């Protein structure tokens, strides 16, 4: 049952705060063309099916795939749309994986596309509408709107992430400098990545700490931007991958685990995630994906990681939760340069979400970059040979988590 799946290419559009020169279908077309350029022997006709997704409420278009059909080359082809908020990209990539792994006759090569053109809409309002229903019920039950308004004030994502930052900082006993260090490393990396948004080659820790708070403990300089951009990944079977690509990247493990929602909870009934930085969901997804991929010592076996960290505390936290570092030791690793381009375990050499965040696409850019690092085609390529890499994503109200484990050797274990 099931079969090996390989990723043979990944492509991006240019990311910027306003891609005012293109409409949304034209934007994703850029990513598809970049993706297909990397595998010259594959053309659009070779693609058997499509997997798509974005966060529709940001752009005011429901099921945009219907309109984009021609621009993707999906006319008279099978297409499926999955979307899960911040993890959309991750779930689209996973959908691409499952489409191939299922072994449905005639579905061998699948193009997965995730995109977002946030400049078209109101991102903070879009994020606020995540919890609008839950907020209205809390209001009915008697919590003042003024109180709830604070949650919305900086956009729901920052709202919930700030809680996480507070608990993480008190647990790991770190200061804001440690957070700023992560930001500096990521944005300097972004300067070497052609498609990234916030390219800051000369950023210093002082610059970051010089900005005011959005919401304690997060400052404006630490928060991810809102970008326009698209990302595409090409999945195919083992046989075809060997024929088409020099280094086929095997997808050995996938997981998209849901925890209960943090902070508000459904129906306004609060959350059992007392400490939002515990992240059982991330730990569970790591457990699932690593066991599929036969990884027992993540720190030793993983050579490269792309983590979904819109806020610096999250990059630190995820690296621990996914088993790359011991609990609360991540900040020291950043300080020691372990996660640098030349380090022992490079993390987020593309600049990460902190530098480029086209929300729907972000979670796909992580596995895409992780795959390109194995192929040796990444824009900011690490000097050492990468054998195994991971791409991670989180979304929702701190409760959805995706993980994809890739390697240059097939290691997938069937349960």
């Amino acid at each position, binding site marked *: 049952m099931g079969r090996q799946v390989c990723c043979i290419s990944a492509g991006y559009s240019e990311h910027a705060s306003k891609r005012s020169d293109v409409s949304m279908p*034209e934007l994703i077309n850029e990513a598809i063309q970049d993706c297909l350029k990397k595998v010259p022997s594959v053309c659009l006709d070779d693609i058997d099916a499509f997997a798509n997704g974005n966060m529709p409420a940001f752009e005011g278009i429901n099921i945009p795939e219907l309109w984009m059909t*021609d621009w993707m080359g999906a*006319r008279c082809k099978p297409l499926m749309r999955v979307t899960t908020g911040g993890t959309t990209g991750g779930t689209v990539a996973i959908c691409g994986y499952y489409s191939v792994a299922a072994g449905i006759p005639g579905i061998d090569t699948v193009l997965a596309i995730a995109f977002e053109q946030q400049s078209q809409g*109101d991102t903070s309002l879009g994020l606020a509408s995540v919890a609008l229903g839950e907020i*209205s019920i809390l209001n009915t039950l008697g919590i003042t709107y003024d109180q709830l308004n604070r949650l919305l004030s900086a956009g729901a994502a920052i709202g919930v992430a700030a809680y996480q930052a507070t608990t993480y900082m008190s647990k790991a006993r770190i200061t804001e400098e440690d957070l700023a260090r992560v930001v500096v490393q990521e944005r300097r990396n972004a300067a070497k990545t052609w498609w990234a948004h916030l390219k800051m080659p000369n950023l210093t820790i002082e610059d970051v700490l010089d900005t005011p708070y959005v919401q304690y403990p997060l400052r404006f300089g630490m928060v991810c931007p809102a970008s326009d951009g698209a990302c595409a990944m090409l999945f195919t079977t083992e046989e075809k991958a060997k024929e088409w690509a020099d280094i086929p990247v095997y997808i050995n493990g996938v997981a998209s685990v849901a925890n209960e929602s943090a902070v508000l909870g459904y129906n306004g009934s609060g959350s059992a995630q007392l400490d939002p930085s515990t992240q059982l969901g991330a730990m569970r997804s790591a457990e699932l994906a690593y066991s599929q991929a036969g990884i027992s010592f993540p720190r030793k076996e993983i050579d490269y990681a792309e983590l979904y960290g819109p806020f610096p505390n999250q990059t630190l936290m995820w690296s621990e939760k996914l088993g790359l570092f011991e609990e609360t030791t991540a900040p020291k690793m950043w300080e020691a340069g372990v996660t640098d381009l030349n380090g022992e375990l490079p993390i987020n050499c593309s600049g990460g979400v902190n530098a480029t965040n086209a929300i729907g696409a972000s979670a796909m850019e992580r596995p895409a970059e992780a795959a390109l690092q194995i192929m040796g085609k990444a824009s900011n390529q690490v000097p050492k040979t990468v054998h195994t890499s991971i791409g991670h994503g989180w979304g929702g109200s701190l409760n959805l988590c995706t993980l994809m484990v890739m390697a240059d050797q097939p290691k997938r274990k069937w349960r």
Partner: protein
Amino acid sequence: MVKNNKGIMTEKFIVSNKGMVRAEFSFWVGRYMDKFYDALEKKKLIGNKCPKCGDVFVPPRKICGKCNASIPLEENWVDLPDTGTLMNYTSSPYKVNDRDSRKVKKQQLIGMVKIDNSNTSIVYRLLDMEPEEVKIGMKVKIDWSEETKGDPSDIKGFVKI
């Protein structure tokens, strides 16, 4: 916010709250459509042609869906006449907008018109026509708005020739 207690039969307490906000969007049209709207503003209709199959699209597109060929921005533009053939029509009392749909007394006639020399149809109102006289295959002509703004409303609708 209204707290209504509907469940007389089941003693259920159902709260229904109204959403309170409005999200605004502004859609970038891209360079192909920008060119098209520039022409529309001058009361001219243009389309572009697929270099492979020769199909002409109104409004213009970057990709021809039939042969997956991409059409360069600078080339293959075609000037089109303001006449066309009615391919299909309907009439409906429902008026739909972003906010809701409402039923109006006067039905509006809507037609799908294939502009001459092009291969796709566009959907607009049929003006100054009685439902009985509308026939599939009849020739129609664009009725331009007096003041053009460079958006789809520059074409008020189609009238019979």
